[in-house]
């Protein structure tokens, strides 16, 4: 149903649609048709109404509203200057990061043997590498040589983590006491109206979402790259994962880390993050997270991993308050501290003292063994999913 408007308008609209796309708004062809249909009902002389119409039809996210407004102003400014549709836009790409969706991780290819089933091959390789590198497992990341780092990164890439499950409110066929009336009746029909067995249903379960907040400030320098590798590995096997890094400010890097190749992923992260190796304001970072992201990513009983050495230059009271809020809105708050592996280390900094009361688990991440042992913690509470389970004994 195309309106009987003149071609001039159509040209303008199409040009405007093109402009929006150049500004980075995803405009589908169907939307342009919707817009034409909508403008039939609008007085075209009322420019503001036309603007609202374009906006409600073409924009679908709040974030895009300011972009739209800017594009609109730009468009009309260009019109006034008699530059109807040939925009002279600088041709910088508007979308900065075009990252392919996360794919299956490539298997290690070195022990290529076509005849062997792939899983077996994979397992054998892990075993071999572990036996070769038993020493490496206990060594603090901070003392690694360049070669050892490379080796450790390979090992980390092979780790697999499973998240604890949470019950959803959906049902599936199963063995609990609940009778599945819908399926039972269907079956009854097939048997000519005779109820032979009562079919049952049970709750379905899903993996809990994981949120990682990783400190990349100066004091973490020796750990941050290798821990990012670890975070990349954790994220690779999971559906619901959100990853943030912070120093003086919080940056979301979920998208960048979706890149399957860890080196490219870390490079991308370096481009996005501005405060590598600077100071730390943990409280401010967590506050930003709580306010801007908490409600969006902590919805379904998430497990939160906070990776930091606890050297904080911010206000301890703020840190305590925001840690409390973070703990209340998550299923489990786990603080991973690389310094915790050192002999005689005591978590005495003011920031840590303020934050510790709100931490469910306080665990080391200084070597490969610690990373392996984290597995059970993340997968735990399969049973005790209702309340918070008791904190693990703290390692000193």
């Amino acid at each position: 149903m195309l309106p009987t408007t003149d071609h001039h308008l159509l040209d303008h609209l199409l040009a405007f649609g093109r402009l929006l796309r150049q500004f980075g708004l995803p405009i589908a062809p169907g939307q342009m048709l919707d817009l034409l249909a909508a403008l039939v009902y609008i007085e075209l002389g009322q420019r503001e109404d036309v603007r609202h119409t374009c906006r409600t039809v073409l924009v679908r996210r709040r974030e895009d509203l300011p972009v739209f407004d800017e594009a609109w102003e730009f468009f009309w400014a260009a019109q006034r200057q008699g530059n109807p549709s040939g925009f002279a836009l600088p041709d910088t790409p508007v979308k900065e990061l075009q990252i392919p969706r996360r794919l299956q991780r490539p298997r290690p290819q070195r022990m290529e043997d076509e005849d062997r089933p792939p899983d077996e091959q994979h397992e054998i390789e892990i075993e071999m590498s572990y036996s070769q590198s038993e020493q490496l497992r206990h060594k603090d990341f901070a003392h690694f040589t360049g070669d050892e780092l490379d080796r450790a990164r390979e090992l980390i890439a092979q780790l697999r983590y499973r998240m604890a499950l949470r019950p959803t409110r959906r049902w599936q066929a199963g063995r609990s006491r609940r009778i599945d009336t819908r399926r039972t009746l269907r079956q009854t029909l097939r048997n000519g109206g005779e109820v032979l067995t009562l079919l049952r249903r049970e709750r379905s379960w899903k993996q809990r979402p994981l949120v990682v907040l990783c400190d990349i400030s100066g004091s973490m320098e020796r750990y941050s790259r290798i821990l990012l590798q670890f975070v990349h590995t954790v994220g690779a096997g999971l559906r619901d994962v959100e990853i943030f890094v912070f120093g003086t400010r919080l940056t979301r890097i979920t998208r960048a880390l979706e890149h399957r190749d860890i080196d490219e992923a870390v490079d991308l992260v370096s481009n996005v993050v501005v405060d590598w190796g600077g100071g730390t304001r943990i409280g401010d970072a967590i506050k930003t997270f709580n306010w801007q992201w908490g409600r969006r990513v902590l919805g379904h009983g998430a497990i939160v991993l906070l990776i930091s050495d606890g050297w904080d230059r911010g206000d301890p009271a703020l840190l305590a308050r925001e840690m409390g809020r973070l703990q209340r809105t998550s299923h489990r708050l786990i603080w991973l501290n690389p310094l915790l592996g050192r002999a005689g280390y005591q978590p005495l900094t003011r920031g840590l003292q303020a934050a510790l009361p709100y931490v469910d688990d306080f665990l080391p991440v200084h070597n490969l063994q610690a990373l392996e042992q984290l597995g059970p913690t993340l997968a735990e509470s399969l049973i005790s999913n209702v309340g918070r389970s008791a904190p693990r004994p703290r390692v000193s």
Partner: protein
Amino acid sequence: MVGFVSIDALQQALTAQQYIADRPLATAIYLSLKLRKPLLLEGEAGVGKTEVAKVLAHILQGRLIRLQCYEGLDIATAVYEWNYPRQMLYLRAAELEGEGKDQALHDIFGRDFLLRRPLLQALEATADGPPSILLVDELDRADDEFEAFLLEVLSDFQISIPELGTIRAIQPPVVILTSNRTRDIHDALKRRCLYHWIAYPSIEKEIAIVQGRLPGVGERLIQQVVAFVHELRAMDLYKLPGIAETLDWVAALTALDRTALDPETVDDTLGAILKYQDDMEVVRKRGLQTLVEQVS
């Protein structure tokens, strides 16, 4: 049916129902009615998203069908379910009366045995009557599975029931979806909808809203309260008060026979507008006295 000749006419009808809609929102609603496209409303809690559907139902004199979303919402609760106990009983009775089994099996999947849930109800408006208004509230609380079949319903306004065939809306419902954005709505669903973000209102608009909703309250109190709430919205709070909170607060103050704000009363009734202990602390630290003076 939905006969508004212009955006102005719609805006006036909304105002008559004490719903103050600004021009962009009125445009979005108007187009949603004209194009028969669902309207997705997003915005902070308490800015009047749900209210749009209620007011529209009043204006159009149609039936309001509300579907509150939650995780795990399934076809049996949202679309239809067979009345199993009744079907069982019917089969029994048919057996006792020696009726043919095939006939009975056919009967029990008739419309009498169908329990109609909101989405199915929304397709039932007749051609000459008023349209139904379907409110899908807090869509962000539902999960992907639900979005998938909601998408199916909203695409063609029809529902397939395997035993019964396809039920098609004679008159498609007016559909309003709301979301608080605790989760992003899937793109495919958004593509079916018009979109509008409802922001917090300006001071003047909020005063008009309160006056419309709570007639008889002194002008001074309303002005002070609205100005106070706007001060709060400019502050660094975890949960900002919405229009709903403003209305609650004015109602609370009126119940206490107050005609103007004073620091003590504000302190006592702060719970009507702020829902987090931390936020109350922040506001108290800023100084209630100063805040009250600012808005007086």
